[in-house]
C-alpha cells in the first residue's frame, strides 16, 4: 500500500479514467481512436484489480495475477484489431466507422 493515500482516492482515479474511456468510445468516429479508448478502459480495470488486492487482501495474489491476464488479452486483442483495420483499409480506403457499413452478404 502507499503511505498517505487511502484506497478511495485511487478508486476514484480509476473510475474517472474508465469513464473517460467509455466517453471516448461512444464519441469517436475513427476506428483507431476507438481502439485507444478501449485501451484506457482495460488499463483502468487492471489497476483496480491490483489496488484492491494490495490494500485489502495482501496474502492472496489473485488480483495481481488477473491483471497479468488482462494485459495479455488486451495486447493480443489490439494486435488483431490493428490487423483487421489495415485489411479493411485496403478494401474500403477509409477508417471511419460510417464508411464500413456494408456487410459481406
Amino acid at each position, binding site marked *: 500500500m502507499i503511505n498517505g493515500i487511502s484506497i478511495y482516492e485511487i478508486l476514484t482515479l480509476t473510475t474517472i479514467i474508465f469513464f473517460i474511456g467509455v466517453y471516448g468510445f461512444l464519441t469517436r468516429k475513427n476506428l483507431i481512436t476507438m481502439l485507444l479508448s478501449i485501451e484506457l478502459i482495460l488499463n483502468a480495470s487492471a489497476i483496480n484489480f491490483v489496488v484492491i488486492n494490495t490494500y485489502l487482501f495482501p496474502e492472496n495474489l489473485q488480483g495481481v495475477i488477473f491483471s497479468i491476464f488482462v494485459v495479455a488479452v488486451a*495486447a493480443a486483442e489490439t494486435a488483431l484489431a490493428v490487423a483487421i483495420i489495415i485489411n479493411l483499409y485496403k478494401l474500403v480506403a477509409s477508417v471511419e466507422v460510417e464508411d464500413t457499413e456494408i456487410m459481406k452478404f
Partner: protein
Amino acid sequence: MVFFAIKAVSSRKMLRAVIYLLFVLIGISGIYFLVDYTFMAAVQLAVYAGGVIVLIIFSVLLVHHIELRLELSSLSQRIVSGILSLVGIGLTLFAIYTYEFSPVENYNSIEVAQIGNLLLSYQEGGFILPFEVISVLLVAVMIGAIVIAKGKKLER
C-alpha cells in the same frame, strides 16, 4: 493522468491522441511502481509503451494523412455520451464511497517468485488452467494475424 486521458479522447489530430495515450500508460505504470508491484510496472512499460503504442503508430502512419484533422461527432451525440459518462461516474463513486473498506497495513512488495509459483501450481488457488488458456489464446491470435495479413492473392 486524467488531463492526458481527456486530451487523448478529444484531440483532433490522431498522432497526438496516440501520444497522449502513451503518457497515460506511463502514468499507470507509475502507479504500479508505487504499490511495490515492480514486475507489472516493467511489463506494462515493455508491452504497452514498447509494443502496443508502436503498433498503433505504424497503423496510423499507414492509413492516415497526418495533417488531416479528425472530425468530431455531432454535438447532441457528445452531450448524451457526456451525460451518460457523468451518470456512470456518479453511480460508481456513490457505490464506492458508501462502502466501508477496511485496508490492511501491508508493506511487503510482490515477488516475481511468488507470481511464478502461483502461475504454475496445481494445488488449491493455483493458476495453471488460466495460464494454459492464455497460451492457447496467444497461439490463436498469432495464427489469426498471419491469416488476416496474408490476404487473398496468394491462393491463386
